[in-house]
């Protein structure tokens, strides 16, 4: 079983403004990038299921020059309120490490 983290160990996430979270997924090599892309495993539907957000709110950008995928989803809440627990959105990417890539 191959997990996304095996192909793209440098996954990271950040706020993209106060309303969005964005995950950058740089693959180790072109073969891994193309494999992940072709597998369809990183789809708006799958990401939407993991984070419980509507599929229509998930954007996935393949960025070939960086051999990377970029995923952008809405934050659970606008950043910086009383209930904030991750001001920079730095640790919200963890569940996507385990996505299985066929």
């Amino acid at each position, binding site marked *: 079983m191959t997990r996304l983290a095996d192909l793209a160990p440098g996954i990271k996430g950040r706020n993209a403004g106060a309303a969005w979270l964005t995950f950058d997924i740089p693959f180790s090599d072109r073969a891994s990038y193309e494999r992940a892309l072709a597998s369809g495993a990183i789809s708006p539907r799958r990401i939407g299921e993991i984070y419980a957000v509507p599929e229509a709110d998930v954007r996935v950008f393949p960025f070939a020059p960086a051999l990377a995928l*970029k995923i952008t989803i809405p934050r659970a809440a*606008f950043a910086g309120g009383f209930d904030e*627990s991750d001001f920079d959105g730095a640790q919200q990417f963890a569940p996507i490490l385990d996505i299985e890539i066929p």
Partner: protein
Amino acid sequence: MNDIRLLANGLVGNGFSYRGFQAGLDRRPHMIGCDAGTSDYGPGPLGSGRDIKPPASVERDLEIMFEGARRLGIPLIIGSCGVAGAAPHLEGYRRIVERLVADSGRPCRLALIHSDQDPALLKAASAAGRVRPLGPVPPLTDAAIDASTHIVAMAGAAPFIRALDAGADVILAGRCTDPAIYAGLAMRMGASPAIAWHAARSIDKGMLATENVEEGSPVMATLDDTGFTIEPTKDGARCTVKSIAALTMYENPDPWSILQPSGRISAEHCRFEQLDERSVRVSGSEFFAAGRPSVKLEGARPVGHRAAMLVGIRDPRLIAELDDYLDRFGTMIRRTARSLGIAEDSYRFRFLAYGRDAVMGLREPLRDSPPHEIGLLVDILASDEADAMALLARASSTGAKLAPVRGIPAGGNFAAPFSPNQIPIGPAFEWSVWHLLDCADESDPFRIEIMDLQA
């Protein structure tokens, strides 16, 4: 157009390689730039008017860059001074530069770009329909403007071009976009907006453009008529297609559309090419001018005073029934507040259960996998510090003595790491303004102040 060389460090106060910086100066750059700001740390720095970088590190970084810039006679441009880029932050940096001028004996013409927004003008702009929410935030109200301690606008390139036209040797800017400090100078020297903006975006995080970030190497962009080249200036550091392309995506929702006041940068049709083992060539960048400019507004307002404690919980019975325990604990805190005469609408509290779901909250997929240990953060926000600390102190003793599970006699539920264990966090802030301001000229929201500093 002759080559334009931009020498970049990442963030004032985070340090950089001294040797790499001096090697960068040997390449005769046309400017030295360094960003100093971010909203990543939340609304605290803007609301409080305080820098959060260590003063000694800020002064060291500025001193080395100031000395290099004055020796070469090139502009030193610092963006978003003091993290948040409001008046008190800019004032702190101005004092440092005055001291550097006095100590070094090198006079300079200093330009200050003030990003603070006049509340009356902002209300008028809002009434005229020129202020739009940026994302899912409510429309801007006069009340939100009045409640804010500071409101800043993010400058694009235009105010920097004006400051350079005025002959500035050093530009200290309030809040601005990260790449604006480089793009202004590059466009003024003849670079196309597409090449200027994308090159600027590729160096504005300094060492993050390199593969070995821990080397702390400054980076240099060399711009010409057909594109730009990025390389680190410290021996042994490397830029790769991956490291440079990754920066284009970084912290932006959409790599095809990186918004600036005057338009958007797109890397959709870009070519990245490894020139040699350490430098990368980029071409095919695009810039689409906006129909009318708009600048981002950021404002923060105080919401009270905060106090918190972190306690460890190891009792597996309590951990198994944590939600029920926290329900009972919350009830006790509300009862205590009543007994202390703290009005119900004047305070809030929350529990964060580290080890379970503190980081991801309702999005946590492993919330039901029982941990063997919990770090419980008890966080109280009240209208003043006395109330927050009083409520926290009472919560501390109440929570420790509550039955860990219904029917089990109380023992002591909290492992405390400090003595005393209650921590005053200080004033707390929230974003009060997160909007876009449409303007006829993108320089309009900014005031440029020129001062000649004599040694």
